[in-house]
């Protein structure tokens, strides 16, 4: 018989096996993955998150979609695209893009900042279960912010006539980088640190 502290039990992020934490770094007994050092994981998460937030700025300032119509070139930003869709009465699509491109990324930034700060400072101490759920939710809905990037790629592939053409704008790259680093930040964040 071994006596174990329930608080020292951790879940392997790769294979989900329960392991006994042995301090800074634990090797999973089932898959051998390194369940990382707490401090370095927080620093990595911050670095990825800040990169994602920085990339999100040009993603909103530059055009996502460029329409070339009979010699006229017109770019539209993410928010501009949402407004145009709304004005044309495509409310559900405007709502989907608004959620995927603006609400989800911003919410993910805020939740990750909140979780990362609460690791260091005692905020929301009694809400451990809620924090885990919050984290799980951001992980689950995060990838959906790729919708607008895919939509632009599909429209660009579909519309390329002599007189009418759609091409992706600079914001597509910035946005894809932002989504990528937000996902990395969420993966790097160590759930064990939630207290």
């Amino acid at each position, binding site marked *: 018989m*071994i006596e174990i502290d329930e608080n020292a039990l951790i879940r392997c992020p*790769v294979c989900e096996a329960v392991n006994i934490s042995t301090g800074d770094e634990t090797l999973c007994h089932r898959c051998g993955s390194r369940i990382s050092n707490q401090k370095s994981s927080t620093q990595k998460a911050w670095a990825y998150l800040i990169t994602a937030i920085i990339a999100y700025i040009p993603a909103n300032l530059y055009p996502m979609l460029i329409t070339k119509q009979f010699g006229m070139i017109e770019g539209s930003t993410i928010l501009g695209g949402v407004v145009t869709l709304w004005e044309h009465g495509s409310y559900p699509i405007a709502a989907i893009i608004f959620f995927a491109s603006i609400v989800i990324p911003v919410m993910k930034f805020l939740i990750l900042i909140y979780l990362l700060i609460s690791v260091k400072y005692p905020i929301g101490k009694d809400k451990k279960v809620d924090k885990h759920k919050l984290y799980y939710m951001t992980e689950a809905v995060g990838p959906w912010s790729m919708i607008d990037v895919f939509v632009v790629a599909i429209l660009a592939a579909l*519309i390329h006539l002599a007189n009418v053409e759609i091409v992706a704008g600079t914001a597509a790259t910035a946005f894809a980088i932002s989504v990528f680093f937000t996902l990395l930040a969420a993966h790097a964040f160590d759930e064990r640190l939630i207290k």
Partner: protein
Amino acid sequence: MKIENEEALDRLIICQQCHTLHEEIPIKDGTKAVCTECGSMLYHYDSRLVDNGLAWSITGLIFFIVANSFPLVNIELLGHEQFITIFKTFLSLFDSGYYLVGLMSLFLIFLFPLMIFLINIILFTLLKLKKAPQFTKELLILFSHIKPWSMSDIFLISVLVALVKLIGYAQIHMGVSFWALAIFVAIDLYITKRIHISEIWMLRKRIFENKGNR
């Protein structure tokens, strides 16, 4: 809390959503155990896990191949016919110089979904044959790393969003591949919901433990 040895850790489960600790109990074939705190699924018991997994993975792969072989959508715009395929989607990004986004799309909507299904097929075949303990372990680890980055479902919704934007400007005809992609996504979701990664780990342990070589 007391446990017998480190092996007994495998009978413990930490809920994926709320992180509550649970102890695994035997359940009836075809049923599932849920978390007492948050109600999310913990594990299933399915005595035909390997056969079912293999059958669904092969079916999924067939639909994936169809989805990639024909046009997703045809449109008629100003008297011109245009169509897209999954491949054309990232090729057009490369063509206009968006290499990074093009490369990302190539992985997210083509390579990763394909790899997920190939890994599943190889994995379930090896488990069925009770062969290659080490390789099945590596496949399972690879699977976990790739899974969050497979975005066929998001791509499918993106196709619909793109089409709604074109309503009024163009005549739209859905292609064979669109329906194949929709079925592929449904199968992918079904497998993800039905077969939990830790169930495959447990199954692998039982198979290779009985053979005496872990």
